[in-house]
């Protein structure tokens, strides 16, 4: 394979229409020009470098990309960044304290061995976090927790320890 030769030149830009978006991400006001078709997931990950939000399907089933939009859990892969204009977005990076101390939900995951590869984990946690923030009462029965988790796929854990982690998180947060 030869490599020491002139590299090809090409137009670096795409022909995408763009728009100016302004949104708050993890408390910080972000103003950027973005392609109108850019998914919020890609915006967070590649424009802002917040790679804790993962992408597992880009069609709404796996939940890996879950973030909060205006305090409510949502799929960032099914949201254009254009649609998030003017909103407040919270990602997994905002959960732990500044000094790195884990949020009680994260702590519960660790104690319960509720993650293996950790790919589904941020989405799982943001979904749970969103649910814990709702005023609706939590159903902490086995079935209730499983229903809460449904919408987030995990291929590693068989969910058993994630169910336990939700219960533990509820304890740590004084919700039981």
């Amino acid at each position, binding site marked *: 394979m030869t490599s020491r030769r002139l590299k090809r030149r090409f137009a670096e830009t795409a022909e995408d229409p763009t728009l100016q978006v302004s949104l708050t991400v993890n408390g910080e006001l972000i103003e950027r020009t973005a392609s109108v078709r850019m998914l919020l997931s890609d915006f967070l990950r590649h424009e802002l470098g917040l790679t804790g939000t993962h992408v597992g399907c880009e069609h709404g089933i796996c939940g890996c990309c879950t973030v909060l939009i205006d305090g409510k859990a949502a799929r960032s892969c*099914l949201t254009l960044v254009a*649609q998030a204009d003017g909103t407040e977005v919270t990602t997994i990076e905002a959960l732990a304290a500044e000094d790195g101390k884990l949020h009680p939900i994260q702590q519960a995951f660790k104690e319960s061995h509720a993650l293996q590869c950790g790919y589904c984990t941020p989405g799982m946690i943001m979904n749970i976090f969103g649910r814990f923030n709702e005023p609706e009462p939590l159903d902490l029965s086995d079935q209730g927790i499983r229903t809460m988790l449904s919408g987030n796929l995990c291929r590693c854990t068989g969910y058993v320890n994630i169910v336990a982690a939700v219960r533990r998180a509820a304890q740590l947060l004084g919700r039981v």
Partner: protein
Amino acid sequence: MKPPLFRYQAPKTLKEAVIALASDPDAMVLAGGQSLLPALNFRLASPSLLVDIQHIDELKGISIAHGQIIVKAMTRHRELELDERVRQANPLIAETMAHVAHIPIRNRGTVVGSLCHADGAAEVPLVLILLGGSVVVEGPSGRREIEADKFFRFHLSTARRRDEIAVEARFPVLPAGSGWAFDELTRRHGDYAIAGVGAVVRLDAGGHANDIRLAACGVASRPIRLLEAEKLLSGTALGEAELKAAGKAAADLVSAPDDMHATNAYRRRVVAALVRRMVAKAAARARTRQ
């Protein structure tokens, strides 16, 4: 799996939105995006313009008046599901909404979007059919109200013209003294239904059904009323034999062909069972509400 190129507008008023939609024959309305974005990501849809209606204040909110629950276009599933007034006025709605997808999807997806999307297996269209509601649309030639029966054509197709925006849906409140029930069979929690059945039943003093409405989703190319089954049950005391006969009549209305998730024969069995169970459940509730 990234969306193809399109242009994007986010008007602040309905009027602007109608103009924008009419301006381009390949324009599409973007509401919650929970059906449209997957289609874009798979490049199964290729609109040249998306008209995002989320910033239009006139399209927000839920109100109840004159026996109708009026759900404006940008009302998210979860809002309708949790609305206490709606729970009082028609508990069937909240019960059914809990079966639509999962909370993060319901936080974004809209009720009217679901009606416009018109998936043959979707729950919200079934509710509209069951209750006899309607959809109000507005286009360059004005506003019109389309009854549920006429609104759904077939899978993913409605009577809404391409240049019309659905501005609201109207769900009748539950008739006084009626019992209700909805359940569905899905392979996975939150999936579209293999089959779903809703029932609204009112009983007379003697315990006979004097008003009964049944509808199903997932069994045909659009949600359907189970009229044959209603007929068989109407005026009866809803005994075992009648329920069985109604179940069978409902099964005979299943036209969905075999697909990877269910054979036609299986859907028939499910619909028959759900009709029996839902009628019994609705009747039991009717008894307590009399």
